[in-house]
């Protein structure tokens, strides 16, 4: 699904990602973990196209992404959520999700201005699909509420619905569990599994180890921009390098 080859990203003198080789398989839930500053969000931003790659290559279903504009990547089937939510506060929950359907509809200013049949037809499909995704994350009853009036947990679900509305093959979730309570986290886990069952590959960055270990079928561990381990949740939990990266070396502790 997604492959990176010797991917590097530097910000001035700071090396955020250092020769990262990664292969993310289709149809799975993959988690990226690592201490703060390990380069997790940088990786997301490079895949999404927020900033350019310094060196190396990103391939999505075999197509190189390096010089592709962000909005075209979305059309290809890459979707994401943000750590800091970034909902549209000037819209209702439903309109937020409808905006996600942007790349799956075509009609423009002209058809809209004159309310041509094409606009009407597409608008109907868009609102139908948006309602479907809103129901999928369990927010159907809040359709007409302003997005920012919802509590944080529901806002996070709303961003997932909005991302799903782009009808992706590959969904990146940036700390979906942050700020959620135990119950909400369990519901989130179920939702992510359902998304996987829809045939969408999921890549998530998450700090909550219980959530990650219970959810991810594959875990990649980054530290200082490098991959230090990869495997199933059980393998990662036993990996000495990972434990060292998270808790520090024994010598340092003393």
């Amino acid at each position, binding site marked *: 699904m997604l492959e990176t080859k010797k991917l590097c990203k530097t910000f001035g003198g700071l090396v955020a990602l250092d020769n990262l080789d990664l292969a993310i398989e289709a149809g799975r839930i993959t988690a990226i973990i690592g201490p703060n500053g390990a380069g997790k969000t940088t990786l997301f931003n490079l895949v999404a196209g927020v900033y350019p790659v310094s060196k190396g290559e990103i391939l999505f279903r075999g197509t190189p992404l390096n010089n592709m504009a962000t909005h075209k990547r979305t059309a290809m089937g890459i979707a994401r959520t943000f750590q800091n939510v970034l909902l549209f506060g*000037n819209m209702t929950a439903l309109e937020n999700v409808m*905006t996600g359907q942007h*790349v799956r509809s075509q009609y423009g200013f002209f058809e809209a201005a004159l309310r041509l049949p094409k606009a009407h037809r597409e608008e109907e499909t868009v609102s139908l699909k948006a309602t479907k995704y809103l129901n999928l994350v369990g927010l159907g009853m809040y359709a007409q509420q302003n997005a920012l009036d919802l509590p944080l947990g529901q806002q996070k679900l709303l961003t997932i619905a909005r991302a799903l509305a782009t009808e992706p093959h590959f969904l990146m979730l940036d700390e979906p569990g942050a700020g959620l309570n135990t119950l909400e986290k369990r519901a989130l886990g179920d939702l992510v599994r359902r998304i996987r069952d829809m045939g969408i590959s999921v890549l998530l960055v998450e700090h909550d180890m219980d959530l990650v270990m219970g959810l991810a079928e594959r875990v990649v561990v980054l530290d200082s921009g490098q991959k230090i381990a990869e495997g199933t949740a059980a393998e990662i939990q036993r990996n000495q390098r990972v434990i060292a990266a998270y808790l520090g070396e024994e010598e340092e502790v003393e």
Partner: protein
Amino acid sequence: MFVRMQSKAGYLIAAALIVLLLLIPFDWFLVRYTTLMIFIGINTMVTVGLCLLMGYTGQVSLGQAAFFGMGAYFSAILSKSYDVNPWLAMLIGAIATGAFAYVIGYPIFRLRGNYLAMATLGLGIIMYILFRQLSQYTGGPDGMAGIPYLCIGGFDFDTKFRRYFLVWFFCLAILLVSQNIVRSRAGRALRAIHGSEAAADSLGINVAQFKVKIFVLSAVYASLAGSLFVHHLRFVSPQPFDFIASVMIVVMAVIGGLASIWGAIFGAATVRILSDELLLQFGSWDVIIYGLILMLVMIFMPQGLFVGLKEAYERLRLKYTQRGAEP
């Protein structure tokens, strides 16, 4: 918001407006206020464009008068000096102004916030200087007179009364078109850009392109308004397109309510009625009272008159129905 727009209050305001528009010219109003109404219509056209750009998309423009002036001068020069049919001149003006906005749009919208404001401000000032200095075409600071009236078949728009309907036909058409756009896929994209550019980008919205498109649309609106303006006055000079004019357009948009299409009428009407009618009797104090009124509106109705009055109406109605329900 659009759900609320379709509420009872919204309908009432729209109905009141239409009644007002239809009845006004048949009475004593005709003599005194038709000119005022024509100017309100023309200003509304420009203001709606800025509402789309500023209120919905979140992009400031302090140079809308430049496009207003371009439409005016294209119509004036083509129809007077080159004997082009006024309607064709109007169309050429709109297309040329739109094309100009398109060309400068891409570089200008690489800027954000204050820098964008500065760049558009510069645009307005440059165009104003061009209107003054290209005197072999524009007539310079003295302007040019004798611009023909618009006419359809044998029907000349040679009375104020007729032009009043012409202007408001265009104005309402523009309001309707804008309303349709706001409620569409493109409208959501614009509001998404306002809400969060990063998020809009991640949903596959071509942010740069949408900013330029709405900039072009606002320029075309302003250009059409400029054409109607000169065919009404039959005279054009640079003064109505100076920096102050651009600021007044912003004031109208803000007073009416940036994020409401129909608010543009309220904004344009308030500013024009205040400066053309109500404040005249205060002599040189008018500017101070004017400023005070604008401040009060902003303090008590920060979302503009349209939303402010609607909310006031709903509060009153709620109060009334509650009192009625009491035993």
